[in-house]
């Protein structure tokens, strides 16, 4: 049986089902602002009840993509389908999507209650129904006692919840969240991530979130799309994105990684072993990939997959390199060792500090062996 990449968060994967109909479809979307192409011929499917993240650096076009879905921008080319219907030209106030803004955009002249009721009032719902729905929302975000407050009488975390309640009040088909936790401090952010996931699962909604924070995207998402310069580089589950990036860009953008450039010197079997020579360092990789001898590729391995030892490895089936400890970063739970190889390249190895006390701590200038099994790293062709 094939091994799995990382833990399985929930049994939900419509994207692997060829018969599944996408809930939202971006079809060959291009958006230009003057000469600048913000989004370039992008196609993307999102499924119902999915928690989907768009991850990328600022200026990559992710916010523009979200704003096109909300209706604040119209695509220059292509179309957006919601449940199979083209929503181009539908103004934002007639779209069944709601958005939670990065700045929260709470109306400062209205109380919490009025903010949450605002969207419902636009639909001319009966007063009683509005009141009931507001109550329900306040309860959902645990702000019942703050109904009469104005936004500036709330803390950052409370405002974030009001914004969430307001955007959920109309029970949108899709909730768009623009950097929803960006303004919160680290501790609160972590708590809120899990709350968001609970709310999404309990209400059975589709969440579409834009973020530049990879940790946030990894934690909350069913799938992540990594964007760069207006195109999507990879769409996959968080574990796939981390353990099986499809390009140097994704590998480098998510987490910490060693990338060794090299040439394929031999391929054996399928799924076989790719041997590559990276300026004197021979690396063997067990992986299914389309390479032939002579290809220029990169070998990528995460620092935590590299083992470090003062003794030479006994096994010959593992990859091993030898070098000098050049720098050490102590992070508490982990220590990162920067090891300098004979050709002056640096390989990082992260070692968990599992014991409080060690007999012989590794220190600067020590010559160490770095080893990793053949399936620990990955060959990148892009």
């Amino acid at each position, binding site marked *: 049986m094939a091994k799995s990449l990382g833990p399985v968060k929930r049994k939900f994967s419509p994207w692997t089902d060829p018969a599944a109909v996408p809930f939202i479809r971006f079809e060959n979307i291009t958006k230009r602002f003057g000469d600048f192409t913000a989004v370039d011929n992008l196609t993307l499917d999102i499924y119902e009840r999915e928690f989907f993240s768009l991850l990328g650096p600022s200026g990559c076009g992710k916010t523009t993509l979200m704003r096109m879905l909300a209706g604040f921008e119209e695509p220059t080319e292509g179309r957006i389908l919601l449940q199979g219907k083209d929503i181009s030209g539908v103004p934002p106030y007639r779209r069944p999507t709601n958005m939670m803004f990065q700045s929260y955009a709470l109306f400062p002249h209205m109380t919490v209650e009025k903010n949450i009721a605002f969207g419902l009032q*636009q639909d001319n719902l009966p007063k009683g129904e509005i009141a009931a729905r507001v109550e329900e929302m306040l309860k959902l975000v645990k702000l019942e006692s703050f109904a009469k407050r104005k936004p500036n009488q*709330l803390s950052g975390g409370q405002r974030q919840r009001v914004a969430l309640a307001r955007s959920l009040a109309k029970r949108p088909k899709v909730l768009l969240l623009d950097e929803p936790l960006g303004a919160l401090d680290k501790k609160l952010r972590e708590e809120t991530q899990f709350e968001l996931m609970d709310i999404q699962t309990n209400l059975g909604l589709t969440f579409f979130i834009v973020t530049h924070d990879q940790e946030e995207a990894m934690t909350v998402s069913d799938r992540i799309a990594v964007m760069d310069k207006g195109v999507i580089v990879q769409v996959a589950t968080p574990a796939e994105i981390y353990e099986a990036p499809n390009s140097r860009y994704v590998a480098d953008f998510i987490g910490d990684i060693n990338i060794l450039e090299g040439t394929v010197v031999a391929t054996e079997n399928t799924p076989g072993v790719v041997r590559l020579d990276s300026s004197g360092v021979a690396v063997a990789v067990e992986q299914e990939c389309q390479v032939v001898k002579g290809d220029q590729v990169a070998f990528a391995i995460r620092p935590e997959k590299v083992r470090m030892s003062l003794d030479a490895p006994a096994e010959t089936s593992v990859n091993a390199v030898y070098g000098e400890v050049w720098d050490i970063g102590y992070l508490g739970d982990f220590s990162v060792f920067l090891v300098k190889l004979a050709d002056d390249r640096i390989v990082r190895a992260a070692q968990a500090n599992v014991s409080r006390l060690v007999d012989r701590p590794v220190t600067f200038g020590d010559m160490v062996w770095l080893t990793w099994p053949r399936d620990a790293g990955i060959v990148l062709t892009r």
Partner: protein
Amino acid sequence: MKSSKFDATVLTLGFAFLYIPIIILVVYSFNASRLVTVWGGFSLHWYRTVWSNQGLMDAAWVTARVGLLSATIGTVLGTLAALALVRYGRFPGRMLFSGMIYAPLVMPEVITGLSLLLLFVAAGIDRGFWTVTIAHTTFTMCYVAIVVQSRLLTFDRSLEEAALDLGSPPVKTFFTITLPLILPAVLAGWMLAFTLSLDDLVIASFTTGPGATTLPIKIYSQVRLGVTPEINAICTILIGLVTLGVIVTSISMKRTELRRIRDEHVAARNAT
């Protein structure tokens, strides 16, 4: 620090220069003597004279009507102009438009006044109350536009987007979200427009006609004849009204500011 003594001196002299002439003017309005340099004791005589001067009272009434009307129309037009400048990006003729907003701020009044007069004459419009009102609307709307524009520039657009996103159409969004939030700037613009209209002599002189003599025109014609305590009294009344208006406005703004600070304290306490 040495410079703080210097600064205090400069500020004292500067404010003395700005305020002493006005204070003298106010003080001498209560002078019983007709002579400016002789203090004849405290008296409200000149205020009674002003009150019973029908010509002055008529002029004041005209000025008030012109001011209220032109400030109100000017505020509507100026707010629209500010929206156009801030929100409409590039539109045909934008350069000319923003030029026409900024130019009246520095344009010598004799030019504005003369050119408007010639327009009214060319169009065959009888000069009077309405021509002064139109003239005042034209130059005050530019001041309103500048005041409102600077507020709109710091306005968080995502508030309007949030309203649209929640199903509120654009025009409704303007009235429920944008306008309430920029209202202080709009009111400040109105105050400014009203005061400018109240103060204007030159443009009103050109564009007025029979039966529409404004207070500044009246005052000017008397000032040319010399200093009289009666004029001091009218001036004092005007100064008093304007000062009262400014003080009331700034106190109410101060209270809003205090409330905001208090709210933030409440928020900080609730942070946990």
